[in-house]
Structures are given as C-alpha cells and as structure tokens.
C-alpha cells in the first residue's frame, strides 16, 4: 500500500512538470562558448533553456583588460537574449550573463570567446 502511495506521488510529480518553469541555463551562444571566430561579431546572442525577462537580465562583454565592449542593455524575447557589440579587435572576450527566468529564478554564468587568433 505504501509503495502504491509512493508511485502515485512520483506520477503526480511527473505530471506536474508540464506547466512548470525551471532555472534558465545557457543552452548555446553565438559566438559559441569557448570558440574562436575569424571576424568580429556585431552582436552576441544567448539561447537559454527557459524563457527569460530581458528587462531584468544583464549581459556584459569585456575585453582582456576588463573594459566593456557591449552596447548596454540586452534585448530579445522568449528564450533568447541579444546584445550589440562594439567593433572588436583581435583578442579574448569574457561574457558574464545574469538572467531572470519568468518564474523569478535567477541564474548566471560566464564564458569567453576569441576573435581572430
């Protein structure tokens, strides 16, 4: 009897997931995480595992010296955030993102990419 109750709880939990929203983790990026691109990208795009709120999210891109090279507030919709980039010379760039998913969970992460090296 107890095992039937446990099985019922498990099934109920699985069934509950249809309407749930989870933490937003980075699914992929363009330029790709850890990649080297031949020419300087005009923008950075981030795809997340959940819908995010651009108004309450930040994406910062900095050069090796720590100077901001992004063009400010990210924009986008659904699972995607995009931020414009200044003209990037050859070098390594560090990205730090911090996003609010639609269920108010906050997540963050960092990665880097290189231009023309």
């Amino acid at each position, binding site marked *: 009897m*107890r*095992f039937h109750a*446990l099985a019922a*709880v*498990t099934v109920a*939990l*699985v069934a*509950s*997931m249809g309407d*749930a*929203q*989870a*933490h937003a*983790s*980075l*699914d*992929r*990026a363009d330029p*790709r*995480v*850890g*990649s080297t691109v031949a020419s300087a990208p005009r923008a950075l795009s981030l795809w997340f*595992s*959940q819908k995010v*709120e651009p*108004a*309450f999210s930040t994406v910062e891109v900095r050069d090796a010296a720590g100077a901001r090279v992004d063009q400010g*507030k990210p924009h986008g919709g659904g699972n995607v955030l995009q931020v414009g980039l200044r003209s990037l010379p050859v070098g390594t760039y560090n990205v730090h993102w*911090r996003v*609010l998913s*639609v*269920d*108010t*969970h*906050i*997540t*963050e*992460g*960092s*990665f880097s990419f290189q231009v023309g090296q």
Partner: protein
Amino acid sequence: MPRLSVRHAALAAVIVMVSVGEASAHCFVGGRFLPATLIVDDPCVADELSLPTVAAFKNGDFPSARELDISGEYSKRITDNFGISVAETWTHLAPPGGPNASGFQNLETTFKYQFLTDATHELVLSAAVSVEWGNTGARGVGAESFSTITPTFFFGMGMGDLPDAARWLRPIALTGQIGYAVPSSASKMIFGVDPDTGETTVDVEHHPRFLVYGGSLQYSMPYLKSSVVDLGLPEFINHLIPLVEAQFQTAIANDFDVVTHTTGTVNPGVIWVGNYFQVGVEALIPINRASGSAVGVIGQLHFYLDDIFPRSIGRPLFASNSNPGRPMFGN
C-alpha cells in the same frame, strides 16, 4: 530611462514581494550547479524530493545477506538558508538459508544551515545535525533501539577559478562531508540463559561513536558546454555529470565490540541532469569484507520541487529580504 511595460511592472512587483534573493533553489552557486549526489548529501538546502532511491547489494554480515533498500527523502527550506529533511528506508534482507526479513529502518531527520555561498569562487559551506530516531524502525532489519545524533559539516566547491591553461579541469567540482555520530546510549545489557548451567548470563553491547565522512568528485558536462567550450556534443551527453562518490565510517570511541574499524563504499557512476529532475546510477564497491561481499548498485530519481512548484511548495516557508549567505543569488 527605460520604459517598462505593464507586464514588466507586474513582474517587478512580484519580485519585490517574493524577494529575488530567495527565489532560487537547488544547489546553484555562481555558474555552477552541484547535483544531489546519491550517497553523500550535497551542501545546499533545497526544496527537493528523492523518490525513490533503490540500492541492491550484498551486505557486510557474516554470512552476507542480499539486501534491497528502497528509500525516499523530502527536503524543505524553512528560510532561505535553513532547511529540514525527512528520510525513510524500507529494507528487505535475504540471508543465505533464510529466513527473509523486511521492514522500515529508523526515521531520519536532518536540520541544515547553509552559512556560506560564494558565487565568485563557486564555494558552498553548510552545517547540519542529523537524528536517527531510535525505536521507529523494525529490529528484524537492523533498526536500532537507540537514537543517533550526527553533527555534520558539508562543503561544495567548483574549479571554475582555474586558469585558461587548465580550462578543461574547470568542470570539476568537489563536495564532501564529515560528521561525528553519537548514539543516545553508550551500551545496553543483553540478558540470556546459559544452556549448560541454566544460569542467567549478562552481556554488554557497546554502541560505538563513529566518524562519518565522504565526498564526491564530479565532472560537469553542462558546465563544460556553458562555461568552457561548446563542443557540439549530443544533447544527452551535455546533461551528464560523471562522478565518483565515497563514504566511510570509522569507529573511534566506545569501540570495544568493533572488529573492522572502517567500513564504506566507493561509488563510480553518472547523473543525468534535467530541468525538473535528475536520474543517477552508481556502483557500490565495498572497501572490505565488513562493508559488503560483492559490488552492488544504487539508482535514484530526484525531483527539483523549486522548479516544479516555484510559487508554492518549492519556496521557503519564511523568505527574507536580506540574504547575506548568498551574495550573488539565492542558492
């Protein structure tokens, strides 16, 4: 000044009310996610449910019995950094030649406080007191008549700080725990009758104090993809965290009856991490005969209640606006 839509304004109001600081949940620290490990408890407080955890192995009895354990654990945040968990295990024992025995182990509760979350260095520290409540389980499967209290220290640490030259090692994380298990009674008298003389006999069974310790070594494929390099691997691979866990206990006091002082298992395995749940499976390799007579297996289905029910049972009972233990966000 940015113009906010009605939807954004409503969302902002919700955020103020629920306080973003505590709206996160299972074990995130900075860009690092530490999964719930199967043997060693993770260092975070969380709203989560392990149901079921199933372990099958040959135990350390002489002769060794086949043992099946089916357990569940429910963890609930009371505040952002303080949580309690309740665990119960059902055991089936099949010794060679029988008879078999089945029943519940003693009820276990844990009170944990996560006192440091350093997102920059991917470091989590917590302290807990676990209580195994005596006389709440079946004697036939080894449940003790006395309670055991175990103060325990936990840590979790990611290697995201490593330099570029060692970037392939950044997905590595370590977690660990060390506790001191103190029985509520030091010994008990066991009365019997000598079959030859018919006289009453008295034996003393000592209840030793144990150092309980262990840890996990993890390599996070999700971290590799999102923070180091996206290799374009199949999505299933990108959700895996291969790991090795180990847990030991060493009798260090009141150990007059103990033959083998240290027992434990080493457990290589893998955890698949999804958005709402994770699935883990590990081998149970005993370190000596007193720990078991053959390699066993353990598997677990684990739910992230904070993600499944983010606005109800997945939130702390008492959320506060300040969150000094979580400088970056609420996990």
